[in-house]
């Protein structure tokens, strides 16, 4: 809306509160990553921008109704679901998606009653991405590091946790890990913990990475160093006195979660030992026939997020989990656009998704300029949506309503020595703003 002096942008969000993954996905001990909220807030304060929370598109108002009300509709609703393992036992009571676990400690309303079982010593995380590291770090961090905007309930549960050891298990090898170097470095340096890296996994790897791109090279070098080199004095002392540990297991593909005697909880996981075919990012894990079991009760599946179709009228590719599009223009639906994870799939860091959003905005602006969007029809915008919502008994939450909720969370946090105490019940949020 900064490019087109007259454009107005209205933002619709399912939850009462804005910011999505910045509030609900970014780990509580990564507050700097949340600084982008300031940029978002500045945008929301523009008099050509409005925010409407507590509105579920596809239920409270349909996309076709939005298209009647607006010249352009951009879908950027992300990936609210997770990939499933597709193995027996994955629905046992002590197996959780990392997505739900992250939602739990970050105060996402739908995960507030997760009550994860933290009563055994060993936890297994399936996956080797940044979310897997986040989950391991939150399970093992000293409490004073965690004491930020993590929810009170989850902090209390973690304080009583018996978890001492977390394995991050990947189907492929060290050269295919999906986490990034900043997060790995943080894990290696996590106070009170020691890394368990099998030297056999890393021997000889130094030669293989000589010519790979810099990010993969530096990341692998850090793993090699931690696995093969003698630690410095300070590090050695920390590792010697560590009470908790974490490690990476490679070339293990989950086959079955094994039930405990009660038939409800997990007691372990059976995995296929794999070998790699091909190399680099496109290497494939192929079972060797060998099988291994790992004893554990808590299993967190961190194998990726997944988008869902919003509304039956929108094209959706269930295989790729994205809305079919060309440069952000939804195929076969003029005036409809998409951006972010629902456009390209659920991977990437801040800059990837930011650049992608700029790209979609580019397409919208081009279409405005080229007359592809028919501006001669004036559209009512929120005016018509408001009456639709009213007729359905839905009360949108404005940005200044959010600011009241924000102020309440910050005030409650102050009492507890935290930057905020998140409100996890949407009803409580709505009551606070007298809806």
């Amino acid at each position, binding site marked *: 809306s900064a490019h087109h002096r007259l454009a107005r942008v209205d933002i619709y969000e399912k939850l009462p509160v804005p910011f999505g993954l910045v509030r609900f996905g970014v780990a509580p001990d990564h507050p700097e990553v949340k600084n982008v909220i300031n940029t978002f807030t*500045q945008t929301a304060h523009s008099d050509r921008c409005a925010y409407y929370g507590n509105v579920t598109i596809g239920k409270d108002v349909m996309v076709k109704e939005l298209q009647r009300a607006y010249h352009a509709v951009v879908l950027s609703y992300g990936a609210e679901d997770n990939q499933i393992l597709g193995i027996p036992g994955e629905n046992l009571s002590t197996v959780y998606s990392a997505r739900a676990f992250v939602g739990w400690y970050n105060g996402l309303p739908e995960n507030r009653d997760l009550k994860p079982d933290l009563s055994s010593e060993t936890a297994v995380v399936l996956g080797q991405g940044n979310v897997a590291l986040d989950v391991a770090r939150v399970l093992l961090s000293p409490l004073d590091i965690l004491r930020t905007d993590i929810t009170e309930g989850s902090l209390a549960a973690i304080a009583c946790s018996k978890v001492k050891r977390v394995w991050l298990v990947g189907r492929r090898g060290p050269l295919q890990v999906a986490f990034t170097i900043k997060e790995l*470095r943080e894990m290696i340096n996590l106070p009170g913990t020691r890394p368990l890296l099998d030297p056999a996994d890393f021997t000889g790897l130094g030669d293989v990475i000589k010519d790979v791109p810099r990010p993969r090279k*530096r990341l692998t070098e850090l793993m090699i160093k931690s696995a093969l080199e003698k630690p410095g004095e300070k590090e050695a002392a920390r590792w010697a006195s560590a009470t908790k540990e974490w490690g990476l297991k490679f070339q293990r593909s989950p086959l079955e979660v094994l039930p405990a005697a009660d038939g409800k909880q997990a007691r372990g996981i059976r995995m296929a030992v794999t070998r790699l075919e091909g190399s680099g990012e496109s290497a494939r894990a192929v079972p060797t026939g060998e099988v291994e079991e790992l004893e554990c009760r808590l299993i967190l599946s961190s194998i990726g997020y997944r988008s869902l179709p919003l509304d039956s009228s929108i094209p959706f590719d269930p295989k790729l989990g994205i809305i079919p599009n060309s440069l952000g223009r939804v195929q076969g639906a003029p005036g409809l656009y998409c951006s972010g994870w629902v456009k390209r799939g659920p991977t990437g860091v801040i800059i990837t998704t930011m650049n992608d959003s700029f790209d979609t905005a580019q397409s919208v602006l081009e279409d405005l300029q080229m007359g592809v969007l028919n501006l001669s029809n004036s559209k009512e915008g929120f005016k018509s949506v408001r009456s639709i919502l009213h007729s359905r008994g839905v009360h949108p939450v404005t940005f200044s309503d959010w600011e009241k909720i924000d102020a309440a969370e910050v005030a409650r946090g102050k009492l507890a020595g935290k930057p905020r105490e998140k409100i996890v019940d949407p009803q409580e949020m709505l009551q606070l703003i007298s809806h």
Partner: protein
Amino acid sequence: MHNRLEPVQTAAVKQGVPEPISLPSCCPCSAAALSKGEVCVGAELKALSAAGWYRSASASGNGGRAGTAPVFQWWQEVTGSDCVSPTTPLPASRVNVVFIDRSGHRIPVQGRVGEDVLHLAQRHDIELEGACEASLACSTCHVYVSQELLDKLPVPDEREEDMLDLAPQLQENSRLGCQIILTKELEGAEFTLPKITRNFYVDGHVPKPH
């Protein structure tokens, strides 16, 4: 800005145990001084430190004369004073640089010694984002610098390198704008913004700083 500066170990250190400096209350870094274009002393000292000057002094110790500490020699030259706490403001220390925006337009701007390149860009409406607000948690302020300039800048912190690893179109001459601190030595430097979308903005938008 004028909080206690931390001592910096450089190759220039020859003597003494570093003591942090407290900038005193008569520091010229008042709002009035800044609005007249005068530079913050703290920023100057920070910039000189970034350029490899060792700073050390005990303000109360020897009246500000810290022997051979280069920064105070500079101070004495510029102000004609031995005092660590000058009462007259310094003239502004300007640095002229050029941004090359994502459409290839050359935009000359004037920065201040001690200012970082992200802040400079945003202050002049150049389209450089700083999502994490200079806390080394993103790579949105990614810029390219000339090889010549690369050689003049201090080696990037490991944490900057970690974030650069994630920048699209990473090149040998990539840096994060928020980590480049202007010094007089950077006079004439050029900062090129990577082309991050198909053809960035239709009419040359600029994100506003906050």
